[in-house]
C-alpha cells in the first residue's frame, strides 16, 4: 500500500475555505479554554508531572499491573480475554455475540475499536452496530472514520450534519440547528438502545487495584451501552492500565480540562463488575503496544490519555483536518503512533509538523511529542522511507543551512529570482509551499544587511559569516 500523503489529502479540505476556517476557529477556541482551565488550577504543572510519573511507573511495570488487573476483574465476576491483534479482538467480540444469538450491538465511542475496524468486521458477519455517541454516529452515517479523537465530526459544520441526518433519518435539512439535530439523534437512537441485548464500550482507564474500567463521556452513552443491555463488552488497550484508584483523581482532573476546558465531563463512570443478572467481558488488546513498549525513543507515546490537546493546538492539524492523515490516530499524537503500526504506510506523517513544540507544552502527561516527531524523521531517513523529492530537498537544505555564507548567497539569489521569474517558474511541482498560497514578497533589505549597515559601523564588530 502506498504511503499516506497528508499534504495531498489536506489539499481537498483546504480548498474549501469555509471548513478550513471553521475547524481552525473551533479548535483554537478549545485550546484557549484549555489554557483558562489550566490557569485556574494552581497545581496544574504538578498534576502533569504526577500523571507522567504514574504512567511511566505503570508502563515500566506493565506485566505486573496487567496481571493484577486481570485477577481483580475476575474476582469481581468479569470474564477477561486477551487479544494479540485487531483480528483476534474482533473475533472474540463476534464469538461472544454469535454464541448468544445477538445480532444488534450498541456501542459507545472507542478509538481502539476504530483501530481494530471492529464495526466493519461485525457488520460483514451480519451484526448491526449502532454508534451511540453523536459525533461517532454522524461519521458512521456518513461512512467516514472519526476526524478527531474527542469530536469525531468536528470537521463538519452544522449544515453538513443536517444534510447527513436528512439523508439518513429524513429530518429537515434546512434546520442546521445543533439542538434540533441533537433531538433527531435522540429520537432515532434511543429505541435502538432500549432494545439492545449487548453493549460495547472502550475505556479511558483500567484500574489495577480495583479491576474497574473507567469511561468519560458527556452523553452518558457508555453508561447506557454498559447498563441497559445484559451483555457488556469492554475493549481495553494494554496501556490504559493505571495502578491505584486514587490515581484517577490526577487523570480526571487533567483529561477534560485539556480536551475542552471543562473541569469534568457529565459522566465519569466506573464499571467494576457485571450489572445485576448480566455479564461483563473485558478484552485486553495488545495490537502492537507490547512492541512499542520496547522502542527506546517511542514508548512514552503509550502514556497518551487521548485528550487531543496536541491536535487542538497543532497549526497543521487545525488547518488540514483529521481525515487528511488517513489514519486512526491523527494530529501530533497520530504522527508518532501510526508508524509503529505500519512504517511504510505512515512514513510521510512525521513531516506534517512545524516542530513548534506546542503539542509537547500542552500534553497533560508530558509526552515529548515534537521530539518524537523529529526522531521519527530520522528513522524514516535511516530506513529509506523518505521520497526522493523530499530527500533531495533536505540534502540541499542541510548543506545550505549549515553554511552561513552559502545561506546568504542562496537567500540573495532567491530574493533576486523572485523579483524577475515568471509565475509558472516559481509555482512549479516542487514548490509545496506555493501550492495553496502565494510566496511572500522579498524584503527590500535583509536583517543581516540592515545590521551590517547600522550596528557594525557603530560598534566596529564583524559579523561572522
Amino acid at each position: 500500500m502506498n504511503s499516506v500523503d497528508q499534504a495531498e489529502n489536506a489539499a481537498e479540505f483546504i480548498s474549501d475555505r469555509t471548513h478550513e476556517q471553521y475547524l481552525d476557529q473551533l479548535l483554537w477556541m478549545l485550546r484557549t479554554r484549555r489554557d483558562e482551565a489550566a490557569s485556574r488550577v494552581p497545581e496544574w504543572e504538578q498534576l502533569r508531572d504526577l500523571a507522567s510519573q504514574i504512567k511511566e511507573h505503570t508502563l515500566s511495570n506493565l506485566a505486573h499491573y496487567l496481571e493484577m488487573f486481570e485477577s481483580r476483574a475476575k474476582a469481581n465476576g468479569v470474564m477477561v480475554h486477551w487479544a494479540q491483534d485487531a483480528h483476534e479482538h474482533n473475533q472474540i467480540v463476534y464469538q461472544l455475540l454469535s454464541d448468544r444469538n445477538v445480532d444488534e450491538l450498541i456501542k459507545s465511542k472507542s478509538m481502539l475499536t476504530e483501530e481494530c475496524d471492529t464495526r466493519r468486521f461485525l457488520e460483514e458477519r451480519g451484526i448491526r452496530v449502532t454508534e451511540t455517541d453523536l459525533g461517532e454516529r454522524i461519521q458512521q452515517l456518513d461512512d467516514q472514520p472519526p476526524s478527531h479523537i474527542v469530536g469525531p465530526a468536528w470537521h463538519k459544520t452544522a449544515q453538513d450534519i443536517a444534510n447527513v441526518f436528512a439523508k439518513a433519518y429524513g429530518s429537515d435539512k434546512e434546520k442546521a440547528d445543533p439542538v434540533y439535530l441533537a433531538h433527531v439523534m435522540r429520537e432515532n437512537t434511543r429505541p435502538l438502545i432500549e432494545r439492545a441485548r449487548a453493549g460495547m464500550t472502550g475505556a479511558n482507564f483500567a484500574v489495577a487495584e480495583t479491576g474497574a474500567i473507567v469511561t468519560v463521556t458527556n452523553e452518558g452513552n457508555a453508561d447506557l451501552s454498559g447498563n441497559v443491555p445484559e451483555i457488556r463488552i469492554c475493549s481495553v488497550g494494554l496501556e490504559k492500565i493505571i495502578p491505584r484508584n486514587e490515581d484517577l483523581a490526577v487523570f480526571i482532573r487533567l483529561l477534560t480540562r485539556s480536551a475542552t476546558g471543562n473541569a469534568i465531563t457529565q459522566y465519569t463512570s466506573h464499571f467494576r463488575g457485571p450489572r445485576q443478572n448480566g455479564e461483563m467481558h473485558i478484552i485486553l488488546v495488545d495490537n502492537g503496544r507490547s512492541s512499542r513498549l520496547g522502542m527506546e525513543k517511542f514508548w512514552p507515546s503509550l502514556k497518551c490519555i487521548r485528550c487531543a490537546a496536541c491536535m487542538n493546538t497543532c497549526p497543521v492539524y487545525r488547518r488540514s483536518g483529521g481525515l487528511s492523515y488517513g489514519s486512526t490516530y491523527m494530529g501530533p499524537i497520530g504522527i508518532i503512533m501510526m508508524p509503529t503500526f505500519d512504517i511504510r504506510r505512515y512514513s510521510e506523517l512525521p513531516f506534517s509538523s512545524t516542530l513548534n513544540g506546542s503539542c509537547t507544552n500542552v500534553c497533560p502527561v508530558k509526552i515529548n511529542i515534537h521530539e518524537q516527531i523529529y526522531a521519527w524523521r530520522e528513522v524514516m531517513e535511516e530506513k529509506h522511507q523518505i521520497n526522493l523529492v523530499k530527500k533531495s530537498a533536505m540534502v540541499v537544505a542541510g548543506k545550505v543551512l549549515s553554511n552561513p555564507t552559502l545561506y546568504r548567497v542562496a537567500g540573495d539569489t532567491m530574493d533576486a529570482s523572485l523579483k524577475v521569474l515568471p509565475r509558472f517558474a516559481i509555482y512549479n511541482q516542487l514548490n509545496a509551499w506555493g501550492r495553496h498560497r502565494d510566496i511572500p514578497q522579498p524584503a527590500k533589505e535583509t536583517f543581516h544587511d540592515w545590521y551590517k549597515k547600522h550596528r557594525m559601523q557603530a560598534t566596529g564588530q564583524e559579523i561572522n559569516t
Partner: protein
Amino acid sequence: MSFRDTILRNVRNNQPSSRELPVIPKFHSEQPVDLKKQFTAALKELYGEVVTEPPADFEEFLRKRFPEAKTICSAVPEYVGDRVPGDFTRWSDASRIDVTIVRSPLGVAETGSVLLSEEEFRVNTIGFLAHDIVILLDPAEIVENLHDAYGHPHFLDKAYSLLMSGPSGSADIGGITVHPAQGVMTLTVIFWPRQMAP
C-alpha cells in the same frame, strides 16, 4: 502458549527499567473553601442546577418543576413516588420514567459532581433513561476535590459507580454543549440533610 502468556511475555521483555510510583498529595486549598458555593458554581458550568434548601412542599415543588411528569420513580424515603426502582425488572423499561429521585452519598465541590452507584439506584438505568433526575445531597457530604472523592468506599466495593456532573449533553456539533443527548434532560441537586423530614 496462550495469547495471554505471549502478550505478557512480550510486555515483560520490552518494558523499560522500573520508574517510581509517586505519592499523590490531597491538594487542599490553603484558604477556607465555601464548598456549597463552589459545588453550585461548578455544577452550573455543565448545566446542572442546585436548590439550596429542601422545599417546604416537595410534592408541589415537583409539580411546578415538572408539570408534564406522570411517572415519578423514587429511590429515597423522603418522597413516595408512583414507582420504585424494583418495578423495572426489565432495565430498559426505566425509559417510561419522567422523573427519578435518588440520594447521593457524596458531592465534589471542584467539579459539581455527585456520586451514585447501584446502591442508590438499585436499578442503574433509572439514572439515565428517565427524562429528568433530582438528586438529594447532604451538604455536609460535599468534599473539596476529586482527590477526596476517590477516597469513597463505593469505588472499591460497588460494581458500578458514577460521578454525575450534569445532564446528558453533547459538544459534538461545533464544540458547544447542547441538550439533549441520550440520557436525562435536566439534573437538579437539592441540598437536603439526611434524616430531615420533607
